[in-house]
């Protein structure tokens, strides 16, 4: 097994949008089989980091390893069999839910082939069952509610059949119930199918509640990474967000709550 090898290893990565360096010499390991959340204030570079991990933008320096292999040396489809990304605020396409989920099989097709073989159909059916969206498989994606739509996109990443799923702000624009539904689905996929999950998430409450590991970013570097417990103890969240994090009693698990510092 690859228990000792990180699913994603970001090593010495640098990037900049202007002349000023934005991300410099960033290192981060994402453990295999865990849920890791990248958190940080606006503009700290967390979405940029996710784009670099997915190969959407190429870093100026450094390397990203997916399952131990340098991702920059992979071809698009090859990379897409290691890591699936749910992009932020993906625009709903004019197609049925099932057609959208079927798009997840694209990395397994040659340029000229687009029809689904038996294996593809099985994977698509399985993905829809896992995401619990079979009952609206024939609906137009544009007509779905925000939560249903996000489930459909998650099912597409499941059909991609990768070890790693990256989620960029999966709960943006969702109401509080839908947020928890999506996070519970993500947890279930991690626990039952062993998917490694890495996500950028804005909502600290959700991050603290549903993650195994946290990586805190501030001004383009990762200032602290570790288990939720370790990161809580380190005071990195207070430093990055200028809020107070308190542990609160909860019946079955550790819970946290946040207070802004008065200054």
């Amino acid at each position, binding site marked *: 097994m690859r228990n000792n090898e990180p699913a994603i290893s970001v090593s010495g990565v640098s990037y900049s949008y202007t002349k000023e360096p934005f991300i410099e010499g960033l290192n981060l390991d994402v453990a295999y089989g865990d849920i890791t959340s990248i958190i940080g204030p606006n503009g700290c570079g967390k979405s940029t980091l996710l*784009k670099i991990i*997915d*190969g*959407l933008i190429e870093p100026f320096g450094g390397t990203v390893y997916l399952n131990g292999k340098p991702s920059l040396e992979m*071809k*698009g*489809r*090859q*990379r*897409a*069999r290691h*890591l*699936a*990304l*749910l*992009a*932020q605020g*993906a*625009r709903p*396409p*004019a*197609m049925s839910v099932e*057609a*959208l989920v079927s*798009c*997840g099989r*694209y*990395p397994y*097709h040659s*340029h*000229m082939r*687009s029809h689904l073989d038996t294996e593809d159909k099985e994977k698509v059916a399985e993905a829809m069952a896992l995401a619990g969206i079979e009952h609206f498989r024939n609906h137009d994606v544009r007509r779905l509610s925000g939560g249903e739509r996000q489930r459909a*996109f998650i099912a597409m990443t499941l059909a*991609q059949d990768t070890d790693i799923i990256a989620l*960029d702000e999966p709960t943006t624009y969702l109401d509080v119930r839908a947020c928890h539904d999506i996070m519970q689905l993500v947890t279930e996929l991690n626990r039952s199918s062993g998917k490694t999950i890495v996500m950028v998430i804005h909502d600290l409450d959700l991050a603290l509640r549903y993650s195994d590991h946290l990586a805190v970013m501030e001004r383009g570097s990762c200032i602290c990474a570790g288990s939720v417990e370790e990161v809580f103890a380190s005071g990195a969240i207070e430093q990055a967000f200028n809020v107070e994090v308190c542990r609160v009693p909860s019946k079955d698990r550790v819970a946290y709550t946040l207070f802004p510092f008065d200054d």
Partner: protein
Amino acid sequence: MTGAFLVLVTVAAFFVGSTSVGLPEFLALISGGEVSASAKSILLNVRLPRVLAALLAGAALAMAGALIQAVLDNPLACPNIIGINAGAGFAVLLVSAFLPGLFFVQPIAAFVGALITAVVIFFISLGMGASRLTVVLAGIALSSIFGAGMNTILIINPDAYIGASRFLVGGLSGVLMSNLTWPSIYIIFGLLIATFVANKLNIMSLGDATAHSLGMNVGRWRMSLLGLAALLAGAAVSFAGLLGFVGLIVPHLIRFIVGHDNRIVLPLSATFGAAFVVFCDLLARVLFAPYEIPVGILMAFIGGPFFIYLIIKNRKHGDA
């Protein structure tokens, strides 16, 4: 159904025309019976190339329109609106003025002109916050520039192109079989490739980040498919002139009927586009008989109002 319409109008187009050669002569010809030499000549040398030209131009322009709309994610785009036709037309007039007689150069020049325009439009549409209407306006500006170029050539060198007035509005009268050889090869090649890679457009419709994450090289495919559209539109313009709006009307109609799956929309647009231009050319021949109007004029009468309707619809959805 589209196929049946295609066959029907194609056959009809053979025996409708300004001379009295009609159905009996056509049937006699295909069954090997007695046909007068003049009837045979009209059928084979006038009507056959014209029908073929209409089929090829219709299929090519409708396919190019479907491709451009999907690649630019812009329902208002089509080869004439974003200036591709004008770019191709300018290039055709340029080579016919300076390299007269070299007919095989025309489709190549048309392709180059179309491609250059497509690349310019592509970069404008990539630009910061370029809306769909901005792309259309840029296309109008490009069309004006190329239009000025074409008129300049025709004023300096009035004999540059025989039937220049027909060329400028788009028409199919006077097309010879020899004009169709090279364009037909390009068009058939382009139609086949586009049909085979149609699924790429479905993946692109998920947005750049998602398409990339699925392993697609989005930039490269967007450029290649736009190039393919330029090849198709350029080939059609080289013999049909600046025939507009086919690429706008036909894909919209097809999507309205069958939905948005490009694997179905693309081949059906080509088929229906072929039938549509044959049908409109037939109308153009008989509507004001004995006068014939170039089919491009008829197309503009239909396409112009349709374009205005699309602009209003686009505005209402708030994404202009």
